C-alpha cells in the first residue's frame, strides 16, 4: 500500500522535470543532425574557392549563388518564374489527383472494372512519360495545355496505383464491422473505407506530387518562356551556372514546402496511426 502511494507520489513529480530537461536539446538535435552534411559541404566549397583552390566558374560557391538568387528576387524575375511553375504543378497535380483517385477507387472496389481497365492503364504506365511530349505538343499545342497534361499524367499513375492498392487491401475484418452495424454505400465509404485508406492515400499524394515536380521540368524544357525550368535552360544556354543552381534551389525549397503542406494538412487525421518509431525519435 505504502509502496503504491509512494510511486504514485513520485511519478507526477518526476515526469514534467524529465520533459522540460529533454525538450530543448531533443527537439533541435534531430533536425540539426541533418544539416551538418549540406552546411559542411557548402562552407567547405566556399572556403576552397576563396582560398583559390578552384575558380568556381562551373561550380559556383554559395556566395555567388546567393547573389544570383538575390538579384533574381530583387528584379521579380524569380517570383514570376516560380509562380508560373507552381501554377502548372498545381493545375497538373489537381487534375492527376482527381482522375487518379476516382479511377483508383473504382478499380480497387470493383473487380470487374479492374479487369476491364487496369491492364490498359498498366500498359500506358510502362511508357516513359516523356515519350508523350511530341504527341501532346501536336495535340495540344506548345502552350500551357500540353505542359499541364504531361504533369497530370505523371501525377496520375502513383495516385491511381496507391488508391487502388489501398482500397484493395482494406482489412476485410474491419469492413465486416461496418456491415455488422448495417453500413452500406456512402456510409460505408465515409465511416470505414475513407479512414482506412487515408494513410496510404497521403503517401500516394506525396509521391504524385514528387513526380509532378519532376515532370514540370520536363514540360518546361520542351519550350517555355517562363518558369523555373526556363531559368535552367536559359542558364545553360547563356553559361550561367549560378542561375541554374539558384533555380534548382528554388525547386527544392518550393517542392519541400508543398510536400510539408500535404503532410501538415493530413497529420491531424492520422494521429491514430500505430507507426514504427525508432527509439531515438520517441519522447
Amino acid at each position, binding site marked *: 500500500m505504502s509502496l503504491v502511494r509512494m510511486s504514485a507520489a513520485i511519478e507526477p513529480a518526476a515526469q514534467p522535470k524529465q520533459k522540460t530537461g529533454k525538450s530543448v536539446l531533443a527537439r533541435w538535435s534531430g533536425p540539426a543532425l541533418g544539416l551538418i552534411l549540406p552546411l559542411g559541404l557548402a562552407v567547405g566549397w566556399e572556403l576552397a574557392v576563396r582560398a583559390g583552390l578552384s575558380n568556381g566558374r562551373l561550380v559556383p560557391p554559395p556566395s555567388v549563388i546567393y547573389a544570383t538568387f538575390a538579384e533574381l528576387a530583387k528584379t521579380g524575375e524569380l517570383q514570376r518564374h516560380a509562380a508560373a511553375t507552381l501554377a502548372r504543378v498545381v493545375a497538373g497535380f489537381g487534375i492527376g489527383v482527381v482522375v487518379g483517385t476516382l479511377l483508383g477507387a473504382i478499380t480497387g472496389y470493383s473487380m470487374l472494372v479492374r479487369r476491364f481497365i487496369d491492364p490498359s492503364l498498366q500498359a500506358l504506365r510502362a511508357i516513359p512519360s516523356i515519350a508523350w511530349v511530341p504527341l501532346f505538343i501536336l495535340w495540344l499545342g506548345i502552350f500551357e495545355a500540353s505542359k499541364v497534361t504531361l504533369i497530370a499524367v505523371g501525377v496520375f499513375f502513383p495516385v491511381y496505383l496507391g488508391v487502388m492498392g489501398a482500397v484493395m487491401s482494406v482489412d476485410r475484418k474491419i469492413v465486416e*464491422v461496418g456491415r455488422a452495424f448495417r453500413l452500406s454505400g456512402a456510409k460505408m465509404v465515409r*465511416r470505414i473505407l475513407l479512414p482506412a485508406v487515408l494513410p496510404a492515400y497521403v503517401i500516394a499524394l506525396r509521391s504524385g506530387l514528387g513526380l509532378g515536380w519532376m515532370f514540370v521540368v520536363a514540360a518546361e524544357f520542351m519550350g517555355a518562356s517562363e518558369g523555373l525550368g526556363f531559368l535552367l535552360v536559359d542558364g545553360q544556354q547563356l553559361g550561367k551556372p549560378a542561375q541554374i543552381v539558384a533555380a534548382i534551389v528554388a525547386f527544392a525549397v518550393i517542392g519541400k514546402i508543398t510536400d510539408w503542406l500535404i503532410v501538415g494538412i493530413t497529420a491531424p487525421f492520422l494521429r491514430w496511426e500505430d507507426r514504427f518509431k525508432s527509439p531515438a525519435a520517441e519522447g
Partner: protein
Amino acid sequence: MLTLEGVGKTYANGVHALDAVNLSVGPGEIVAIVGGSGCGKSTLLRAISGLDTPSQGRVLLDGEKVTKPHEKIGIIFQEPRLLPWLTVAGNVGFGLEDRPKAERDARVAEALTRVGLSEKANMWPRELSGGQAQRVAIARALVPRPEVLLLDEPFSALDAFTRVDLQDHLLGLWADTRPILILVTHDVDEAVVLADRIMVMRPRPGRIFDEIAADLPRPRERQSSAFDRVRRHVMAALDRSLKPVAPSDANEAAAFWW
C-alpha cells in the same frame, strides 16, 4: 425468441459446411456452441448474424426473417476489431451514429463505466491491452442494446486470467438487459461457466450432435463438483462427436450398397 429452421450452408466451392440446424432460443437464454475445428460453429454464427446468408433454411428473430445484419443482433468477434482511427469512446459509440449527440455521449460514458474503462475514453485503440480492447468491443456491441448478442470465440486470444475475468464481466453485463447470448467457443470451461444450454456440434458437415443442459445456479463455482459433472458430460459428448461416423448413423444405407 430466436429460431433456426433447418439452417444449412454450402459454400460456392462446394464445401458443405453446415447441415440443417434447428434451434430455438428463448429470451435471456445463454447458449454455447462447442465442437472441434471445422464443425461449422462460426458458419452457424455468421448465418444468425446475417453477415452470411444460409443456403438452406432460415433464421427468424421474433418471427422476422434475418437476411442481413439486423439492428437487434450484435456480434463480437474473436479479435476486438476496433476501428484504429476512432478513440475508445468513438468505437463504443460507433453503432449510435444516428442518435442525438447528447444521448450518444451519455450511453457511451455509461457503457465505458460499466466495462471499467471510463478513464480510457480518449485513448486510441493501439494504446489498449488485448483484454481492454476486447472489453471495448463488448461495450460497442452492447451499446445499441441488442436482443441477441453473438460471440465468436471472443476470449480465445486472451490469457487464462484475463479470460476468466472477462467471462465474469460478460455475465455481469448480460444481467443488465438479459439479451440472448449465443457463444461459439472451443473452451469447455467457458461454455459451462456461461451457458444455460450447450450444443455440441459434429463436423463434415457441421450439425448439432448433442445438447446438454447446464442448469447450475449462478454465479457458478468453477471448482464445484456439479460444475465438473457438466464439464465431463460435455467432454464425453465432444469425444463422441469427433469419432468416425458409426455405421448405424447416416451411412447406414451406404453400408448396404451391395
